[in-house]
């Protein structure tokens, strides 16, 4: 698929903390192996029990739009063709408390509203320089 912000938009610089999130092809968050707390963004330490023993949690990726903005002002001339675009904050049904940000792939920017139901989808992009396929989590609006 074409990326919401265009194919020239920067890619995530992968590191040990974010690699699973941006490449797994499922919505992979960080979970404490000791107390099962899920946190985002990932940290070196569990924010609930301070354990260093951290692994992954696969969310089903269903959620609700908790806030939405529409960006109109291009930060630089290269963004003139990208604006307007919407950014959402999404709460997941299976991970209380956490919000993920993203774009909604199947709606016009001004057609996204707080309360909309969304499901995770993925922008697949090949980072040829690093020879890795990225699967960047995004959101599609669903009825109901």
């Amino acid at each position, binding site marked *: 698929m074409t990326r919401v912000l265009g194919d020239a938009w920067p890619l995530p610089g992968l590191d040990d903390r974010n690699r699973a999130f941006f490449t797994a092809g499922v919505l992979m968050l960080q979970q404490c192996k000791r107390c099962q707390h899920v946190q985002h963004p990932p940290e070196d330490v569990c924010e609930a029990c301070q354990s260093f023993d951290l692994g992954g949690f696969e969310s089903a990726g269903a959620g609700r739009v*908790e*806030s939405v903005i529409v960006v109109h*002002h291009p930060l630089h001339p290269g963004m003139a063709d990208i604006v307007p675009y919407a950014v959402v904050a999404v709460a997941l049904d299976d991970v209380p408390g956490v919000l993920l940000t993203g774009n909604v792939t199947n709606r016009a920017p001004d057609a996204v509203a707080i309360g909309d139901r969304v499901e995770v989808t993925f922008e697949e992009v090949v980072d040829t320089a690093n020879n890795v396929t990225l699967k960047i989590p995004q959101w599609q609006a669903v009825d109901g």
Partner: protein
Amino acid sequence: MHGAAAIAGIGESTYYERGGSPHSEFQLACIAIQRAVEDAGLELADIDGFVSYMDSRNDPIRLARALGIRNLRWTGSPWSGGGNNSCASIQAADAAVSAGYAKHVVVFRALAQGQFGRFGQSGGGGGGGYLGGAFAWNAIYGLMTPAQQCALHTARFMHDHGISQEALCEISLACYANAQLNPRALRYGKPLTREAYHASRWIVTPFHLYDCCPENDGAAAAVVTTAERARDLAQKPAAIVAAAQGVGPAFATYTQDTLGSSHYGQVAEHLWQNAGVVAQDVDVAQFYENFTGPVLMAMCEMGFASPDGIESFVKDGALQGPDAKLPFNTSGGNIGEAYIHGFEMINESVRQIRGTSTCQAPNVERALVVGGPGYSPGSAVLLGASA
């Protein structure tokens, strides 16, 4: 030891539009510091401490050399963010002089974005490349700037409490109206109408152009010393009744329980606890307006109104002028006077205590400054005519 310290002197450079300063940023800092020291009735050699925030360029050693200060006892800078620490910097100076680590600490902020480039532009792209670290999580989705970050909170706050665009407009109109009384203000002689506000372009919903503060060049400084010493100096002291910091979520982190917030709940709790008074005891308030929306949230979190009542609290010009129910951003603030990262609001509060503001509120006993909302740690300081 609340009230043990006071602001004894204030000074500022001329304020300029971004890129308009004939001086370097460091020279602007030196101008503001010299004027604050002179205002206090001190000599540069009396200064033995420096505090600033988000400033790695005008460092204390460089300043000490340039200003002939041979005996530096205290330097400090609050961590993280930017204008959120404007009042934390006063707190750090209060701590130093109250504890006796230094006698006369200069607190200042200088910025020349014409010389050094702009804030709020970082982390974005469009020409390829990579976004790493904390930026990766949100900038990948085009959520990059403070305007966008604060808009995400404001949109939820407005949704939850039925707040209209007019409430945001009122913040900007009040800053512009009060700036018309202040010849230092960059928007002096350039009034804003409600119609022009609504007609201005969208930056990011729900912020129009006039919801966003401009970027400027300039410097402002204040001299903090003990209340006892301040009594013998040139000006009426502005007692530091209380100062406080408080935290919210980490940078680039959004949580359900802090969405729609400016993260000032804890600042309020700490400040009023330290001060022994409440919001309704305040005679005049300066609220850092990076953007209008977070001011509404900060007003609620600081205890001036409920979220459901904030629109009626600010509507129909209720914040404008010296006789407002709550005289607000009386110099024009970041939007109307100049964006000196909120430090112009510290100096304005000192003027309110002295009775010398161009928009002077009546009988000022307590003047509040609330630092930049939406980022953590937040900070606030309450100044008083007496401790």
